[in-house]
């Protein structure tokens, strides 16, 4: 009885105090933070990207808030782990919008998850800033296309860039090594589509599951196909490193190109000495040869005790910067709808990464070739090719 009374008295006092504060500083209510969701794959197989994305968004957020956030209003990011699972991604959109009231969401973590989250984002009227290369994410067929904005170069751009480079060096016969998922399969499909126009030929392709422990059979197969160059459409670092080692072992001594998914520190560390000259397309070069913007992000990460990995950080912060830029450009109330509308008019956007983001009503693929750099492995580092 007494304790009950005490509680209710305390509660009343607290309410009074709150009211008093609110009255004393009327501006308090106005600077309620702007909420942005981050629906990332922080566990499950895609955590390789989700965790660097989360880390980079966290440090960049502090940085951007210290620069005044959205016209003086602080930004708050609410994280949600989609566990690399489609149903969970849909649920994440639901929770971020209906409970946390976010006005935009960076995510989801994988192409498939974007496809699952898209319809729900459309229904709840909140834009998705998709940090994925998966071509289908911004397919014109998708009813929810108006609500999805890509913040990474699409796989089509990546693959064309690589194959163009290979063709330029006179490598006409290309072998493709790819991982068994949407990302990997896109590599073969796009390569075969582009072959004619680039004057090349896909002479063989060899897939492997993420967890393959030996890739020499795949390497032999591409060796026997007489490939003049190998293109690896792989984002699992151990798989890429394993294949390079296998290729050297079975005597497949031709130039190897890695897709941007491999521009990760753990791939470079894992592939070791046998990989000198290996060419990796990369979104920026955060780890080894950063641009001024990337340098800043890399310093922020190191100050927070994180080791930059090289891919997730850049696309993740692209999303954050784009969301803040869109919010800044809105004159009236900031809602999911007004964020979406603002994004379609964003162009020339500069984030920490290289390249300029630009969306229009018809094109939701924000970042293009200018975001990419060609690198070569030299002395256990990725050296930006001039």
């Amino acid at each position, binding site marked *: 009885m007494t304790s009950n009374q005490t509680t209710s008295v305390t509660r009343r006092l607290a309410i009074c105090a709150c009211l008093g504060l609110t009255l004393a500083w009327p501006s308090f209510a106005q600077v309620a933070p702007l909420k942005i969701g981050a629906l990332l794959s*922080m*566990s499950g197989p895609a*955590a390789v990207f989700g*965790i660097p994305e*989360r880390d980079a968004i966290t440090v960049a957020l502090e940085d951007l808030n210290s620069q005044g956030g959205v016209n003086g209003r602080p930004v708050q990011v609410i994280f*949600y*782990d989609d566990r*690399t*699972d*489609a*149903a969970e991604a*849909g*649920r994440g959109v*639901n*929770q971020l919008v*209906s*409970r946390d009231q976010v006005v935009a969401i960076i995510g989801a973590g994988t*192409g*498939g998850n974007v*496809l*699952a989250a*898209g*319809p729900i984002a459309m229904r709840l009227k909140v834009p998705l800033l998709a940090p994925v290369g*998966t071509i*289908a994410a911004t397919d014109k*067929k*998708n*009813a929810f296309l108006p609500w999805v904005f890509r913040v990474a170069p699409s796989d089509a751009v990546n693959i064309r860039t690589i194959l163009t480079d290979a063709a330029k060096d006179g490598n006409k016969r290309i072998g493709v090594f790819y991982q*068994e*998922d*949407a*990302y*990997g*399969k*896109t590599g073969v499909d796009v390569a075969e589509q582009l072959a004619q126009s680039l004057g090349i030929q896909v002479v063989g392709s060899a897939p492997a599951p993420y967890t393959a422990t030996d890739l020499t059979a795949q390497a032999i197969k591409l060796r026997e196909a007489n490939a003049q160059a190998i293109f690896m459409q792989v984002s699992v670092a151990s798989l890429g490193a394993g294949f390079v080692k296998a290729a050297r072992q079975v005597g497949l001594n031709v130039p190897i190109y890695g897709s941007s998914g491999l521009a990760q520190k753990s791939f470079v560390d894992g592939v070791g000495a046998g990989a000198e000259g290996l060419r990796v397309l990369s979104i920026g070069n955060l780890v080894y040869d950063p641009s001024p913007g990337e340098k800043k992000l890399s310093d922020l990460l190191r100050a927070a005790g994180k080791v930059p990995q090289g891919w997730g950080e850049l696309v993740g912060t692209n999303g954050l910067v784009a969301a803040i830029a869109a919010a800044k450009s809105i004159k009236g109330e900031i809602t999911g709808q007004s964020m979406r509308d603002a994004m379609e008019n964003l162009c020339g956007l500069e984030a920490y990464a290289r390249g300029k983001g630009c969306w229009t009503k018809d094109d939701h693929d924000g970042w293009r070739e200018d975001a990419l750099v060609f690198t070569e492995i030299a002395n256990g580092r990725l050296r930006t090719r001039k």
Partner: protein
Amino acid sequence: MKQLRNHANSAAALLIAVLFALLLRDPVWIDVAVVIGIQALIALSVGLSFGQAGLLSLAQAPFAAIGAYATGIISVHYGGSPLAGLAGAIMLPALLGYLLARLVIRLEPLAVALATLSLAAIVEVVIRSWDSVTGGYVGLSGISPLAWAASPREYFWLVLLVIVIVIALYENLLASRFGRALNTLRHDRARAMADGVPVVAVSSAAFGLSAAFAGVAGWLYAHYVSYVGPGDLGTHLSISVVLMAVIGGASYVLGPVVGAIVLGVLMRMLPAQELQGLFYGGTLILILLVARDGLLGIAEPWFARALRAIVPQPARVAPEDERRT
């Protein structure tokens, strides 16, 4: 009275479901409840095949995936109605499950489990590679929502309804000669053969039925998420649903449902991200250590006492020795 006893589980499920449905207000929890409900259905299918017939299957999630793709393909490629999809989502997994069982049921239980694992891998490969039909690695998006269960709350009602129907069917089967035969052959196949049970046919039929339950769950999944991809209903989920069934009590009709709710809610409550697996695995070991026959195994004696207090027992003629005292 007898009828009520036979259908005690579905009655209890109905009661719990209505209570839940009335209590749930938060849209996020409704969404969680829908997904838990779908997983509970797959876990129920484990209850039937593993808990009753003793056949450990690690292909229940792929059976659900087949159900989801069946209705997804009918909906996306042919614009067919979800009801046509439902027929496909039941028949295809049932047929596949039945055929697989005919092939491997004679093997020892672990080999059966491995065979189901192989089937799961084959299903996954077919889904991934049959681009023109399944959408390949990218998956099928734009599966039509159900017109008569458009909002998550309505969908939740639908899931509950399906669960209650499935439980009622499950109970019907258990109370029949087939249910008794399944329990016998789980315990001892030779004993079942001596009763005149065609062991292979009965276990295969039960396995097919269990696959059909999973297929229905897949149907619900596809129309709820509106997207299905090759990684969605995979081996991880197959293992999760076995855990759900075991934690709740696989041999109890309602065990898998209880397990699904407990694990589902637990997953929401646990701190997310990197360390989630540590808590999940730890909790799992703890539950297994404490509850031998699952949570319902703990609850049963307690529950029986409560039931005796509430429901008057049917008049029973006391056996002679009792009368004498």
